[in-house]
């Protein structure tokens, strides 16, 4: 497996590159969301919420799509999507990626409503901010697991 990971056919490079580029942008965006939403809880509410919302909408969700398209493309190239019983690391990848899109969409809606309320000067956004923060934190934890699975490839 080590040799296979180090030397692969050239036509696998582009889909794998897109997959990793999307994943890096996704994780980078989510850490920015966590920092922004946490700073909104600390007092800098409107700007922090707005940045958290935009990082989810314009950073995390498009990056998720790039990551997922790249994943499907490389899985197809490697013939992993045709297997009746795919390796555990592939299953972990699917299980951590697809449900988290739903979490990201819900978090984006929560952060968007909270940002709008904060922008209007209303104070009733704390629960929505916390909900978005928790959802994004769960998603990030799942992605660390996915990075471990993709790099160590447990059978």
């Amino acid at each position, binding site marked *: 497996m080590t040799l296979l990971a180090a030397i692969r056919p050239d036509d696998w490079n582009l889909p794998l590159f897109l997959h990793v580029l999307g994943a890096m942008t996704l994780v980078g965006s989510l850490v920015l969301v966590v920092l922004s939403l946490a700073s909104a809880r600390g007092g800098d509410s409107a*700007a922090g919420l707005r940045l958290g919302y935009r990082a989810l909408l314009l950073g995390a969700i498009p990056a998720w799509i790039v990551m997922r398209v790249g994943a499907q493309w490389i899985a197809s190239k490697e013939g992993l999507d045709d297997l009746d019983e795919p390796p555990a690391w592939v299953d972990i990848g699917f299980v951590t990626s697809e449900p988290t899109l739903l979490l990201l969409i819900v978090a984006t809606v929560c952060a968007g409503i909270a940002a709008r309320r904060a922008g209007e000067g209303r104070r009733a956004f704390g629960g929505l901010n916390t909900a978005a923060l928790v959802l994004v934190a769960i998603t990030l934890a799942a992605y660390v697991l996915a990075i*471990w699975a993709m790099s160590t490839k447990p059978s």
Partner: protein
Amino acid sequence: MYDTLLFLHLLAAFLLAVTVVTYTAVALGAQTSGRTLFVADRCWDVGGLGTLVLGIWLALNLDQYEIWDGWILGAIALWLVATGLGVRSRIGAEDVSAERAPLMHWLRTVAIVGLLVLMFWKPGA
């Protein structure tokens, strides 16, 4: 050993992405807190050191690569360029005006994407 090194090397690279994404938001006009920028800068420090040390360790760990392979030397050179640009991208960096910091950031981003391209295509390997 290889798997653990690769996992940690990837984690370090993901830390670099945190910095690049955060500074991209700043360059596009987002207002960020000082704490957010502090964390982004520390991610750059840890991620930069981690990618270099673990990357060289990985190259030494695999028989099919040598440290003097062209793509590895190119990656080290790009890493040095990205590190220099990263220092100059920091908000409030002493020797860089506020107008030039975004330019330094975009150049740093190009260097990081270039590093990623080298990691996948490994020209000459």
